[in-house]
Structures are given as C-alpha cells and as structure tokens.
C-alpha cells in the first residue's frame, strides 16, 4: 500500500482500483499487459512465456527486464513486511485517505499489523 497513488498526484487519470480488479482500466500505458505479466510471474502461471512475449513486443525487451526486476523487488518487500509485522507508515496512511478501505485492502490479514498498532 505504501506506493498507492504516490505517482498519481496531479494525475487523475490513474485508477488504482485496477490493482485489485484488473478488469478495470488503470489509466497506465500498457497497464493491463504489465499486470498480466506480474500475475503470471507471481502465481507461476503456465502462460508466463506467452505473456512475456506479448509484453516484449509492446514495450521492448529492456523494459521487460524493468518489469521483472520490479516484480522481484516487491516479492522481497512483501516478505519483509509480513515477516516482521510492520504497520504502514503513518504518513502513508494519512496520504491514502479512504483508498485502502475502498479497494478492500483492509480485509487483508496483514492489515491487522497497522490497525492493531493504532
């Protein structure tokens, strides 16, 4: 949640509802394909090679490396967060407003690490 909307200040076209419901348009260029790639990689989807090929055609091989390394980076960060029980930083929580609840993120089990800490 820490990055939610960090880059969307002044850009009303971005829709972060797409991160929990990929059928929604994210407003991000090639957003659907990037999310398909992310899901195939994280969930070990059998379609990873095919999605990666389409992504490479759309954004180029070097940008696919960016996508893969970003996915890998956050596969690390979620394990640090969940493995240490950290709450979301207070300034991020304030900036996010009602978005976490609206997106259903507060239903995640690890949300308790934030709200139990007050």
């Amino acid at each position: 949640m820490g990055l939610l909307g960090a880059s969307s200040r002044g850009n009303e076209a971005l829709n972060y509802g797409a991160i929990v419901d990929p059928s929604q348009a994210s407003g991000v260029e090639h957003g659907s394909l990037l999310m398909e790639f992310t899901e195939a990689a994280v969930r070990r989807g059998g379609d990873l090679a095919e999605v990666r090929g389409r992504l490479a055609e759309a954004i180029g091989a070097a940008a696919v490396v960016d996508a893969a390394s970003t996915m890998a980076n956050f596969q690390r960060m979620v394990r640090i967060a969940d493995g240490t029980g950290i709450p979301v930083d207070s300034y991020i929580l304030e900036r996010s407003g009602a978005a976490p609840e609206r997106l259903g993120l507060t239903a995640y089990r690890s949300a308790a690490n934030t709200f139990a800490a007050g």
Partner: protein
Amino acid sequence: MTTDTAQFDYSEAGFPIAERIRECHLRDWERLRGPGAWWTGAERVAIARQTRLAEDCALCRERAAALSPAAVAGEHEADALLPRAAVEAIHKLVTDKSRLSEAWYEGVVGAAGMSEERYIELLGVLVHVFAVDELHRALDLPLEPLPTPLGGTPSGYRPAGAAKDVSWPPILLPEHADPGDLDIYEEMRGRRPANVVSALSLVPDNVRWLNDQFAAHYLSWTEMGEIDKQHRRLTRPQLELLATRVSALNECFY
C-alpha cells in the same frame, strides 16, 4: 551444486539485463556465502538452499491451500545445518507469508537454536536470494548455482541501541545508532526510515544489503523521491502499478 565463482552470465539471456543488476547479483552471492552476525557462511547458504526447496515443496502447497495450515500434518525434511524451526520458518515465509502473526514469530524466535537476531538475519538472507531467483524465473533464466560458503565465525553483533518499536522484532532507529551504523539510513537524510527498511535493522548488514539490491532492482531511495524524473525504461506509474499489483496478489497490506 555450489560454485566458487558466481557468473550471472546474462549474455545468452535474450534480454538486455542492465550491468547494474548483474554487478549487484555478484555482490549478493559474495554477501550470501560469508559469515554474518548470527549464522556461518555454510548456514547462510543452507538458508538459501531451503528457500529454493520451499518453491517446490508439496507440503507447503498443501498447507497454503488449507483453511488452516495447522490442519495439514507433517514436517519438512531436516537440514543438517539448520535448526528445525529455521527450516519451518523459511518454508512459511516463502509460501504462506500472508498468514503470519506475532504469535507465530514468538514461537519461531523462542524455539531451540533460534533467537530474534537469528530470525532477522535468516529473513534477510531469504528475501535477497528469493528476489534474485524471482527475476530469473520471470525471464525464464536458469537459477544461479549457490555459492561455496566461506569459513569464519559470525560476529555476534547486535546494535546496542536496538529496541522494540512498531514491528515484532526490535529495530535500530537512527537516533539510537552508533556512528558505525548510521550509513544504513544515509539516504533517508534525517527522516525516520520507512518501517520496511528499519524492519531488518536488528542486523544492520541486512539493511546495507537491502539498500543495494533495492536500488539495482527498482530505484534507489533518492530516486524514489524524484517523482517527476524517469530513471528506468518504465515510467513511474508503470513501476508503481507493478509494485502495488505484487502486493495485492500477495494480500500484503503494507
């Protein structure tokens, strides 16, 4: 299989992998194979090996799919170099991390052969090896053989200023750090570090590793603050869409 000399040879990868990433992965393997503060080099490489085994673990898959993991009986095969609780923790952190709790954490650090410091170093080793492997898997590259461990004794270093704060384990905040550890928060420029950074600080070398790999795989902390600059081929909204989608797929609130 282990190797004395890591290659991370991406010349046949089919993707132009940036040199900053390759150089970081070479440093990752050097960090991995040496003694840490609480585990020997051989034990750290054993943690990495278990991290890989968890990926294809049938017991973990069954537990992750169960309504309650406790409903699925069984134990992982013992590792000659690691306490049983360490093996169980590694498998859980790789395959079922969204169901961790403070009670689970207390059980792990209180188990035979474990401690808060050993848990945090284990987590540090696990996540950095896992991230390297994840990048390889996403691009269909073979996993790099694990490195041959170096000898030597763990330092036993625990920062004197580490204390319980917002996370389950104690952390080291800048205002309580000895001068020799202040570098871990250098890029924070006096601000309180993000919780996900300080979370690993009971073992300061973990944070040094995190800073290095985070910058190579994603952006440096300084670049993260430069919202309007484009540092990678993907734009900032594209990077953040990917990042937040990973969190959502993992049901990670943070």
